[in-house]
């Protein structure tokens, strides 16, 4: 085992991790390193397409208050309003900062950053869609990731690439917990490394691979949510999982909401623009939870497209092909490459795809991870930002373009806070066998010779999560899923793998990742069962209404042992926008 010492360690090299690292480096008196299981530029931030929302007002009049309001309403009032305020203000400057770093945004004729419309973003508190999403064609995330990685090279950030974090070095003290680093597995050699640090920022992204049809990369397996959860840190609001309306049929590959922002229309089998019925004011640009549910209703009522009536059409045939090629080139390419459908001539078959976790590791506004149910109960030295974290900006449903904004605003805040903490902290001693948990995990799985197949358990998890815990849920489907997961977790103890080698053992890695995913699924389902109301992305058919009296609060799910959880609550930070019925 090798031991490395740093002041600040960042786990993850997507948008949030790189932003945190750049700011930690600027603010720390000591050393900073980033650990990533992928080469930084392979991170899934690179897949983000449509844009990053900020009230620049380059096309329409716009104000941060409008953005703040839309975010809160979009989140069905579960959004913490202090987070939304900081976000809506700071994201303006953060986007300009990206431009100053050289990010090649698309441009308006007057030379300013181009902006497009996106779901749920409106002017004057809901009156009409507003152009707020700053974009670089349909590869905004790619350009953010590239730009931040370029800056990391410029500023000499240290990277440990293809290192997989398997454990936190976390001590229980009399009055809380302290994080002293992480333990990681080097994929190229099979070696275990201990990273001893004063502070750690978790920025490891999402967990969409627990569902069968998803826009998420294979690598998005919720590793750090699971590790935190195993180590006694609660997961917040995990029942709120976003299904994006427009995934390529069967594949789940995303077609950005920006397609509808540019005028694309959803149609059922008879060609009807059905969103006019569900959201008369903003129609196809309603927030994702509403559009995904509307699509399911259409399919259930027998108005789906295709021989099995099981998908919806995304129609762009009325849009000037030149605009499509210029603003949405990758979308055109995905449709042509994977479905062999020519979008300029025929509608594209789509279905909702598992996309984004609103929940995650609970943090304060400065990214400090909390272990209790109040913001005072912080884990010393531990921070989180990006999709892995829950501040909670997105509440019960994230608006499109608010994740990229979240990465840069809260990634930066976490990086600064982690550096400042490290500047005052000392490197406290760690026990000699801190790596034991990770070393045992690796050797147990490397030598696993049971009868169960990792691929089969994973597929059963993905399929059953899709059937029982996706767009619609009931007591019955969720209880069924709790049992299914218990069974899968038990079978997981009896897996076998064939590759026993040290180098690039990707079979071993997939097996470990499956263990992480099962924890994520467990937290999601237990939290969903406990929330007997419908709010944002959490739609309970047996509790159709939002219930503010009982449930205007954040879920905090603790793992007692695999298969067994305890749910506590945390207050929502309310503010000037009082909860109102959510119509569009």
């Amino acid at each position, binding site marked *: 085992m090798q031991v490395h010492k740093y002041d600040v360690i960042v786990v993850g090299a997507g948008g949030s991790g790189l932003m945190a690292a750049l700011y930690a480096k600027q603010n720390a008196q000591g050393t900073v390193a980033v650990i990533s299981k992928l*080469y930084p*530029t392979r991170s899934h931030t690179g897949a983000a397409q449509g844009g990053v929302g900020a009230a620049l007002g380059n096309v329409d009049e716009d104000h941060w208050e409008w953005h703040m309001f839309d975010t809160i309403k979009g989140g069905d009032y579960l959004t913490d309003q202090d987070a939304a305020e900081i976000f809506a203000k700071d994201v303006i400057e953060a986007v300009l900062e990206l431009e100053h770093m050289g990010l090649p945004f698309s441009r308006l004729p007057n030379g300013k950053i181009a902006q497009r419309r996106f779901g749920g973003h409106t002017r004057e508190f809901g009156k009409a869609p507003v152009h707020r999403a700053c974009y670089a064609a349909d590869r905004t995330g790619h*350009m953010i990731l590239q730009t931040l990685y370029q800056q990391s090279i410029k500023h000499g950030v240290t990277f440990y690439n293809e290192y997989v974090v398997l454990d936190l070095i976390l001590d229980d003290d009399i009055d809380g917990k302290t994080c002293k680093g992480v333990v990681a597995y080097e994929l190229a050699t099979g070696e275990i490394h201990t990273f001893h640090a004063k502070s750690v920022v978790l920025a490891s992204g999402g967990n969409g691979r627990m569902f069968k049809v998803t826009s998420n990369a294979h690598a998005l397996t919720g590793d750090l949510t699971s590790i935190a959860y195993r180590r006694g840190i609660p997961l917040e609001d995990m029942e709120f999982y976003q299904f994006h309306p427009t995934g390529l049929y069967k594949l789940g590959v995303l077609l950005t909401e920006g397609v509808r922002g540019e005028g694309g229309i959803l149609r059922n089998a008879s060609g009807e623009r059905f969103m006019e019925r569900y959201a008369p004011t903003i129609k196809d640009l309603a927030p994702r939870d509403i559009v995904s549910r509307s699509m399911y209703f259409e399919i259930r009522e027998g108005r789906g497209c295709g021989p099995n009536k099981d998908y919806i059409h995304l129609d762009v045939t009325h849009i000037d092909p030149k605009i499509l090629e210029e603003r949405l080139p990758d979308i055109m390419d995905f449709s042509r*490459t994977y479905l062999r459908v020519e979008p300029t001539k025929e509608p594209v078959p789509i279905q909702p795809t598992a996309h984004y976790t609103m929940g995650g590791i609970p943090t304060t506004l400065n990214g400090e991870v909390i272990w209790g149910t109040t913001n005072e109960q912080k884990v010393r030295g531990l921070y989180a930002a990006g999709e892995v974290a829950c501040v909670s900006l997105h509440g019960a449903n994230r608006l499109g373009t608010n994740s990229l904004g979240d990465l840069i605003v809260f990634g930066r805040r976490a990086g600064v806070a982690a550096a400042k903490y490290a500047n005052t902290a000392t490197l406290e001693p760690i026990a000699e066998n801190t790596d034991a948990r990770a070393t045992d995990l690796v050797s147990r799985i490397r030598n696993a010779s049971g009868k169960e197949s990792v691929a089969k358990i994973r597929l059963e998890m993905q399929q059953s999560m899709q059937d029982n815990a996706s767009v619609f849920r009931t007591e019955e489907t969720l209880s069924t899923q709790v049992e299914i997961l218990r069974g899968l977790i038990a079978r997981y103890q009896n897996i076998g793998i064939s590759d026993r080698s040290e180098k690039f053992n990707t079979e071993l890695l997939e097996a470990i990742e499956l263990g992480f995913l099962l924890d994520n699924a467990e937290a999601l389902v237990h939290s969903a069962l406990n929330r007997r109301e419908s709010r944002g992305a959490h739609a309970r058919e047996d509790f159709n209404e939002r219930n503010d009296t009982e449930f205007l609060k954040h879920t905090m799910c603790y793992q007692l042992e695999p298969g067994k959880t305890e749910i506590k609550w945390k207050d929502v930070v309310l503010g000037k926008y009082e909860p109102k019925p959510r119509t569009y």
Partner: protein
Amino acid sequence: MQAVFKIHRFNPEKDKKPYWAEYTLEVDAKDRVLDVLHKIKWEIDGSLSFRRSCAHGICGSDAMLINGKNRLACKVLMMDLGGNTVTVEPIRGLSVEKDLIVDMTPFFESYEAVMPFFINDDAMPAREHLQSPEDREIYDASTKCILCACCTTSCPIFWVNGSYLGPAAIVQAHRFIFDSRDKGGAARLAMLNQNTGVWRCRTAYNCTEACPRDIPITDVIGQVKRAILYSNT
């Protein structure tokens, strides 16, 4: 339909030298080659090793030699291959670590050598720099690069002479040289004028054909060559 996959296998911990393994399996015409590799890994031989992440041509993880051409496994469908026998090998010119995984270090070193970051030491404007859509368009294609290495590892010059920076690094340099906001052009042109730079390119067009992002790489290199010539006169 049935397909036969012949895959380059090499586990340095067991094998003295690489060998071909053959797998026969049921596939669908619309399966990506990556789907088939997963099927082999998940159902037949778990030790088959390759990189991948996004599965839709965006992250650049899974460049490989498929039926003799550099491709992303997630962007080629079975129906594109015009036959049921498929060979899969690691990309060339980089040392093989295991099966289809190569050591990418030299590739990223060349990338870092071209100063692949925005250079402009002027005081930043209060708002964004202004850039016309026309000026933005000039370097649009090279911003699409995902650093998959399909181009560089298809280049015969790179195979023979590893010190050549290679097409991908030049594309990255082009992205900044032709950006009206950037001030580091002269330094980058000087670097690409050295004997590891653009003059090694013999316009074989392999890179352009290999690029999964449709970047006209040979033209891009040509533009850099011309910029050097003009800046020297």
